[in-house]
């Protein structure tokens, strides 16, 4: 191909990318938020899972993101990889004089990639799980005991990431879950709240394939396991958290405070929660 065509192709690619990128133009300046976090453990292993999920049951379009399980000595943390990136950006922003369009345009590409919107901290000493998650702009926290899952070990084996894995099933949160775990990695953890099997869960999905976690990498990097400490957090129950989440999806007009030029149609947001709670 002629060099001129290659340059033209590159230029058009750059411009088409610019054209389709999220962009906010605004003179408004906001005061930065205070950022606080406590280091609660250090990971000895990290498992990266690809997370595929269906948000809208009407269209069944599959979305995906990357999630991470940080395994510490006592505490493990499961969250979206981009939620960690968002925290890192918010930490940087907290040191700025003001936040404006530049910061908005930095944070949006990260927010867009977040698929799994909760942070789950599992404390094996206290036998408890702490959940943190946002409903629109309000952050909530709730705690529960580590659930005792009644796994049924099934016949069948396969190989994931060169590890031989075995099959098990369980009913939890209104869904039937299928897990593939490896006894070669004697860690009783997995994605979301799942664990209590004789090995690390490397693949997990519900029988309707609404949610699917597949391990794509394991490393032994020591990374900080932290918990965000926020003044404005709402401490609630699991039932009330899911109720608030459902309310936001069904009646967003009660949560959104802004005004769009020309008026806005407040549309319902498709809701397909990982746990079905009445």
């Amino acid at each position, binding site marked *: 191909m002629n060099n001129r065509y290659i340059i033209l192709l590159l230029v058009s690619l750059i411009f088409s990318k610019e054209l389709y990128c*999220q962009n906010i133009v605004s003179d408004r300046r906001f005061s930065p938020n205070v950022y606080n976090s406590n280091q609660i453990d250090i990971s000895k292993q990290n498992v990266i899972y690809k997370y595929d999920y269906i948000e809208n049951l009407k269209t069944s379009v599959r979305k995906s993101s990357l999630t991470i399980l940080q395994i510490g000595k006592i505490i493990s943390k499961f969250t979206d990889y981009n939620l960690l990136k968002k925290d890192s950006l918010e930490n940087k922003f907290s040191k700025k004089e003001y936040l404006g369009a530049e910061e908005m345009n930095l944070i949006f590409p990260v927010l867009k990639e977040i698929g799994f919107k909760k942070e789950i901290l599992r404390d094996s000493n206290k036998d408890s799980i702490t959940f943190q998650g946002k409903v629109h702009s309000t952050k909530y926290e709730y705690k529960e005991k580590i659930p005792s899952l009644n796994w049924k070990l099934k016949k069948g084996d396969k190989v994931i990431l060169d590890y031989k894995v075995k099959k098990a099933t369980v009913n939890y949160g209104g869904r039937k879950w299928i897990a593939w775990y490896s006894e070669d990695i004697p860690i009783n953890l997995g994605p979301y709240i799942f664990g209590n099997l004789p090995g690390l869960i490397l693949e997990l999905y519900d029988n309707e394939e609404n949610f699917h976690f597949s391990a794509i990498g394991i490393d032994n990097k020591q990374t900080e396991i932290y918990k965000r400490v926020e003044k404005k957090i709402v401490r609630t129950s699991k039932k009330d958290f899911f109720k608030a989440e459902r309310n936001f999806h069904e009646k967003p007009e009660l949560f959104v405070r802004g005004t769009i030029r020309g008026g806005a149609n407040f549309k319902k947001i498709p809701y397909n929660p990982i746990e079905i709670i009445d």
Partner: protein
Amino acid sequence: MKSLFLGLTFLLASFSGTSDVEKTVTEEFVCSNWATINPKCGNTYYLCTDSYGSFDDFIADVSYFNSVKC
């Protein structure tokens, strides 16, 4: 006649099967700062930033409007 028209509009909205609520900006609406939002899909819109006390509230609303617009 006007009340009949309003009644019919209400009935139509009730039977439309959606819960869309129209929030109309009247001609008297005054905003000191409009932010221009160009989402990836190209449906540019303008959001009044006056009512936001924090960066997080603004970001949360833009995330919602982007999902509606795209």
